[in-house]
């Protein structure tokens, strides 16, 4: 009779789960109870115990278990409760006793399929008894779904399917930045493996606290095909190999770590357009990346970085914007770059640097030279020449000035994240600052728009421009989001341009500040000075306050080291 409970052939949920518990090694809290159970076992070993009402089952089971496996003391106590428990509690027990193992295993590919089925028809579990052993290992969240279903919450299953849908979409999105060097071939495998990696981290939150669960954001799937095609084109372009290739290549792995940065691949396409005249040591890229995470405290060395970023910033379509950009940049650049340019070549380089604003498609130096001569003739040229004989002490300022404009291109994306919040605040003063510094932005709009179509035709320059442009477009999207009303495309473009000028101006200022202090690297003090000029940091509001207000803890930790309590979690999980 007692055995009948155990040896019943109908594979109900309860029995199967019980079997799982039996076969699983128990851990942690149950162990103490197991010792007590062992003590009880000896007491109730007599056949007289069989007669007891509630104890009969446990004793009988104990007998059977002893027959089965004498060593499993732990289950005795637990099995005593089994009959009274629901499948939900059984699953909880399983989870507590389940051995930990890697979530991402090749066999789990099978798991997502049977898991939903388990949800719907418990009768199928009989056929998957062997799989259930793996259930707690691989898919505890999904296995909890049946328990939740049993409790009558239909929403959970829907959420699961909706989540998986969203996950697939996310996979498509994440394929872009994550699978850059792999191409299409590995995409599917990556997808399938991603299926699991994303499932476990996301679902538990929603399952454990169903009230707090959020629907995954529905995003439009990225046109992966076009993107990968661009990647291949850029790779093909990058084959000629250039000085930038190696430094740029260091960026992707680092940028991947950050937020979804799409610069990773397109940067490789920058190489063909790099100016051979400019030397770009790879060290600077690391600085760029480091400045990404620590924009407040970057270890930038403007001298080298300038040229390299210069090359990056070079590849913009030749737009009339360059003319106004020149004008706009000239006031910025002039004070810094005025002294040293003695040779025309140097001046051409300068002009190239100035074109970082939104400048030309510079395949070679002649093109910039052509434009810049026109612009230089405007006004500052004469002043520059007049000031040539100034001492070499200005040389630093020049290079830093060069750095200023050019580091904008790459530092712009880096500054994006860190300055996200700051940008939103100075958004109104931004336009005024821009208007102050740039004499004629209205002039640039028409020629810029006119030049846009030729830009999109060729894939090479577009790729070169992509990381810079995507950074700006990211901000433009933020702008359109916070505008709370539909924004025209032209307006967005104008916003992008303004942001462009704004960031360049900011970086120029940083440059100048650091040079003013006789340094070649931009430091925290420079940034603080900049923020003070912006009005973000005042006598009442210090930088510390802003850091605490806006930065997440990880970043805040870097700037304001705070002591942690040093707790350790027991048991080690």
């Amino acid at each position, binding site marked *: 009779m007692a055995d009948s409970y155990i040896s019943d052939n109908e594979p109900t949920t309860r029995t199967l789960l019980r079997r799982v518990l039996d076969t699983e090694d128990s851990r942690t809290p149950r162990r103490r109870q197991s010792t007590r159970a062992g003590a009880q076992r000896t007491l109730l070993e007599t056949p007289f115990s069989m007669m007891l009402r509630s104890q009969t089952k446990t004793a009988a089971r104990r007998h059977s278990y002893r027959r089965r496996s004498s060593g499993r003391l732990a289950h005795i106590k637990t099995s005593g409760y089994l009959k009274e428990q629901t499948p939900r509690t059984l699953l909880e027990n399983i989870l507590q006793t389940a051995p930990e193992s890697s979530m991402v295993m090749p066999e789990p590919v099978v798991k997502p399929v049977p898991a939903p089925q388990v949800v719907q028809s418990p009768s199928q579990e009989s056929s998957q008894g062997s799989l259930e052993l793996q259930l707690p290992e691989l898919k505890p969240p999904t296995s909890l779904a049946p328990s939740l279903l049993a409790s009558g919450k239909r929403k959970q299953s829907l959420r699961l399917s909706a989540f998986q849908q969203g996950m697939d979409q996310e996979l498509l999105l994440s394929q872009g930045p994550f699978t850059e060097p792999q191409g299409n071939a590995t995409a599917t495998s990556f997808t399938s493996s991603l299926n699991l990696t994303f499932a476990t981290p996301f679902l538990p939150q929603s399952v454990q606290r169903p009230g707090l669960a959020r629907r995954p954001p529905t995003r439009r799937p990225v046109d992966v095909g076009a993107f990968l095609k661009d990647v291949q084109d850029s790779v093909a372009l990058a084959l000629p190999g250039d000085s930038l290739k190696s430094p740029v290549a260091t960026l992707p792995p680092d940028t991947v770590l950050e937020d979804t940065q799409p610069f990773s691949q397109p940067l490789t396409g920058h190489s063909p357009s790099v100016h051979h005249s400019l030397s770009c040591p790879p060290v600077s890229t690391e600085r760029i990346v480091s400045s990404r995470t620590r924009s407040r405290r970057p270890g930038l060395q403007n001298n080298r970085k300038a040229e390299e970023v210069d090359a990056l910033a070079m590849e913009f379509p030749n737009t009339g914007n360059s003319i106004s950009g020149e004008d706009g940049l*000239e006031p*910025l650049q*002039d004070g810094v770059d005025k002294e040293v340019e003695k040779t025309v070549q140097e001046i051409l380089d300068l002009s190239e640097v100035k074109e970082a604003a939104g400048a030309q498609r510079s395949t070679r130096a002649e093109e910039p030279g052509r434009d810049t001569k026109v612009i230089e003739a405007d006004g*500052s040229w004469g*002043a520059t020449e007049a000031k040539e004989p100034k001492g070499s002490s200005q040389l630093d300022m020049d290079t830093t000035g060069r750095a200023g404009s050019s580091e904008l291109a790459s530092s712009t994306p880096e500054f994006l994240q860190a300055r996200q919040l700051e940008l939103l605040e100075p958004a109104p003063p931004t336009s005024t600052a821009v208007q102050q510094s740039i004499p004629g932005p209205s002039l640039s709009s028409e020629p810029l728009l006119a030049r846009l179509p030729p830009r999109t035709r060729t894939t090479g320059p577009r790729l070169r421009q992509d990381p810079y442009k995507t950074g700006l477009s990211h901000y433009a999207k933020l702008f359109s989001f916070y505008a709370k009303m539909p924004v025209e495309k032209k307006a967005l473009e104008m916003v992008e341009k303004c942001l462009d000028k704004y960031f360049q101006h900011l970086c120029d200022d940083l440059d100048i500040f650091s040079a*003013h*202090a006789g340094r070649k690297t931009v430091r925290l003090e420079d940034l603080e*000075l900049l923020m*003070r000029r912006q009005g973000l940091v005042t006598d009442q509001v210090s930088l510390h306050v802003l850091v605490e207000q806006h930065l997440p803890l990880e970043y805040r930790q870097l700037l304001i080291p705070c002591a942690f309590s040093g707790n350790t979690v027991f048991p080690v999980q």
Partner: protein
Amino acid sequence: METVEEEVEDQERFSYEQRLKAAVHYTVGCLCEEVASDQGVQFSRQTIAAISEVTFRQCENFAKDLEMFARHAKRSTINTEDVKLLARRSNSLQKYITEKNEEIAQFNIERKAKKKQRLEHENKDSAGPAEAGGGESEN
């Protein structure tokens, strides 16, 4: 007691500020008159008042910025470098300032050169004691 003194100080500062503002207003008025006569346009009173107010506030900003720049360069005195940094935004202003700076620098150099020449003359002409006296006076 202290508060009374503070109040008095505040009032003094306020009156001082008012006088400064008045002075700025007057200067701005004069300049505007010049421009008006040159260009043949009229300036309304409100315009002049607005310009003077803006000038005054901007001067305050300049002063704060100059102080920040000097402190940023770890100096306690405001330098021409700080002024140039301040004026970098405006192209023409920057040019103007740098030109002036060069003029002044050249003037200083010339003055130093003249002084040196005078020193040399004195040294050649005068005897030993005069040299010592001249050297001391120079130093």
